[in-house]
């Protein structure tokens, strides 16, 4: 104990003081080191029901934005190469406006052929008419002879035969003309079918074909050639779980937020509820998914806005009906 002054004892004074100081330090460490178990606010706002809906009965659903006409997958009546593409995604088209043309060389060749056949038939008619005229004149000449002995009976029969043959030839030529005209008509129809036109006025949403590609009418191929639809207004198809479907207040407006932008809340007007409850299809990421959940699809019209796009997923909140049974 020579380190310490004489009247200070290690075990009686220094040790207890050290112990108390150590205890205080330990207590400080313990209290500052306690873990933070508090909850924190989400950094990004999740979708939520607001206003009157926040604390009243409601039904939530997820939806998919679609055109009010629903998406139209444009098909082609005939197979062939694409020779002209008249629209681009985002274009607005009028009803009947050509969208794309399919290779029409074969049809045009057939039309030219038919036209040639028409000319040929016309020439044949002219020739037959001339022959008929000659034959009938000849026959008339014989008929007008007063002296029956002036011409032999055989000559007369031959002239009569010539007249009949000429008449038949004329009819044949006329029939050939209408056949050729019908062929020309069919070639023109085919030409018309090779031009694919917009079935309604609307917006082009997707163009999946390019110049020179082959469009096939054989089923089973993947993408539709062109997708279009009427996008003013947009509709949203909200899936509501069948268990919740009975609670939905049909006819009421819904609050709709796009995914990832929950602070945007659009008021969507009720359009209709689909009469058929279908297996839940959308919002799954696996092609092999089997489903046992069925959903009621309710359609709402979105207000004019730039934030919604066709095919986008949205979160929707719909007011629930005050069921009589729920209130006891």
């Amino acid at each position, binding site marked *: 104990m020579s380190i310490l002054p004489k009247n200070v*004892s290690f*075990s*009686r004074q220094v*040790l*207890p003081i050290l*112990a*108390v100081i*150590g*205890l205080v*330090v*330990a*207590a400080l*460490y*313990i209290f500052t*080191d*306690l*873990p933070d*178990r508090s*909850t*924190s*606010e*989400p*950094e*990004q*706002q*999740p*979708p*939520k029901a607001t206003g009157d809906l*926040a*604390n*009243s*009965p*409601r*039904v*939530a*659903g*997820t939806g998919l934005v679609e055109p009010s006409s629903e998406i139209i997958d444009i098909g082609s009546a005939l197979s062939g190469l694409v020779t002209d593409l008249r629209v681009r995604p985002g274009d607005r088209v009028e009803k009947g406006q050509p969208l794309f043309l399919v290779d029409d060389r074969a049809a045009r060749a057939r039309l030219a052929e038919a036209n040639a056949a028409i000319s040929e038939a016309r020439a044949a008619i002219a020739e037959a008419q001339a022959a008929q005229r000659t034959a009938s004149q000849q026959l008339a000449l014989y008929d007008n002879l007063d002296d029956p002995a002036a011409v032999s009976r055989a000559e007369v029969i031959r002239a009569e035969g010539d007249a009949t043959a000429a008449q038949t030839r004329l009819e044949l030529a006329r029939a050939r003309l209408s056949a050729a005209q019908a062929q020309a008509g069919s070639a023109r129809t085919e030409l018309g079918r090779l031009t694919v036109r917009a079935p309604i006025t609307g917006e082009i949403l997707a163009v999946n074909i390019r110049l020179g590609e082959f469009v096939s009418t054989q089923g089973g191929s993947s993408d539709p050639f062109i997708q279009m639809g009427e996008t003013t207004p947009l509709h949203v198809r909200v*899936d509501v*779980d069948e*268990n*919740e479907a009975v*609670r939905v207040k049909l006819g009421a407006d819904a609050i709709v937020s796009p*995914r*990832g932008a*929950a602070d945007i809340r659009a008021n969507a007007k009720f359009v209709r509820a689909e009469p058929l409850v279908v297996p*839940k299809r959308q*919002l*799954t*990421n*696996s092609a*092999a*998914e*089997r*489903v*046992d*959940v069925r*959903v009621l699809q309710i359609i709402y019209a979105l207000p004019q806005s730039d934030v919604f796009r066709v095919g986008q997923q949205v*979160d929707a*909140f719909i007011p*629930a009906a005050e069921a009589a049974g729920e209130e006891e």
Partner: protein
Amino acid sequence: MLWIAIRMLTGDAQKFYGLLFGIAFSTLLITQQLTIFVNLIERGASGVYNAPEAEIWVMDPVSRTTDVNYAMPSTALDEVRSVPGVEWAVPHLRAAASVRTGSGDLEGVAIIGVDDATLIGLPERLVEGDKKILAQPDTVIIDDGGVVNLFENGEDPIGQRLELNDQRAVIRGVADSIPSFTSQVTLYTKYSQALNFVPGTRNRLTFVLAGVSEGLTADEVAARIEEQTGLKAETREEFADAGVNFIIENTGIPTNFGITVVLGFVVGVAIVGLTFSLFIRDNIKQFGALKAIGVTNAKIVRMVGAQAALVGTVGYALGVIGTVAFIYAFSGNPFFKGFYIPWQIPLISLVSVIIILAITGFIALRSVLSTEPAAVFR
């Protein structure tokens, strides 16, 4: 007079330090073992604590903890959103998967899919990277404990490619999270991405995390969710407790640690009791002399009390300091990550020390109190 008692106590250094050692040792044993025990079983709740935004966890009625779960159909999310009082609700996926590392090793991992849009369910802090990084394709964020398990040779995890269910996954961040009970590698990713990483079963949505509207308590809203949807809804605290209880019920850990704590107590009683009794017996003459000069029994009790208080305070302090030093020294070790000393535990050991000293002091005092002043002459 009490000072005399203290001098008496410290006069015999051997016995004094023996007493201190006994108290310090049993305090250390009890405090340290209880601390490790509490922290270890709290690992069962780490999944809950790692999702700081969630006030309510909604799950299938048969789910028990974050790791023992049963998936629900994906429309459960909409059902929860339909409940009044639920401010928001987001999907949360927890599933096990196997991962192939670049070096070809196979490792079981926990995949956690957090909400795509809001990233609710991610741990609050990242050690490396930014939460926004999850927007990049095939991104996963690994937990810091997992870095140690998966990259034993000290490689930088950032940018490492993994193979998950035949899909490519790139580590682009390291989360600062509390390890799970099994210290399993945990990969955080977006919900939609997680669906691809986890081999497909019909239902995948394991949890719905929900927030509570202002003015309502989590308990009320949880009860409403249970009533309206038929799912099980637990508040954060309930679900954390469920995770802890699951470990208590299903492992031998409480028994093991309980035995150690009892041993600490017994060792304390044995060492301190023996030393204290010997010390009193040695000083029986002094006590006799004190009695001879008219010191009352009450005063003698106070003297022995003062001796016990000094020994107790110093010994207890040494034990607690030892525990703190232990936790502090190992705080850098990934196994001990997030370990802390709950403030209740030093109080428990304090009570134990008081009980040990009370028992031993009482046994030692009995002989003193019955001593006659004449003992000084024997």
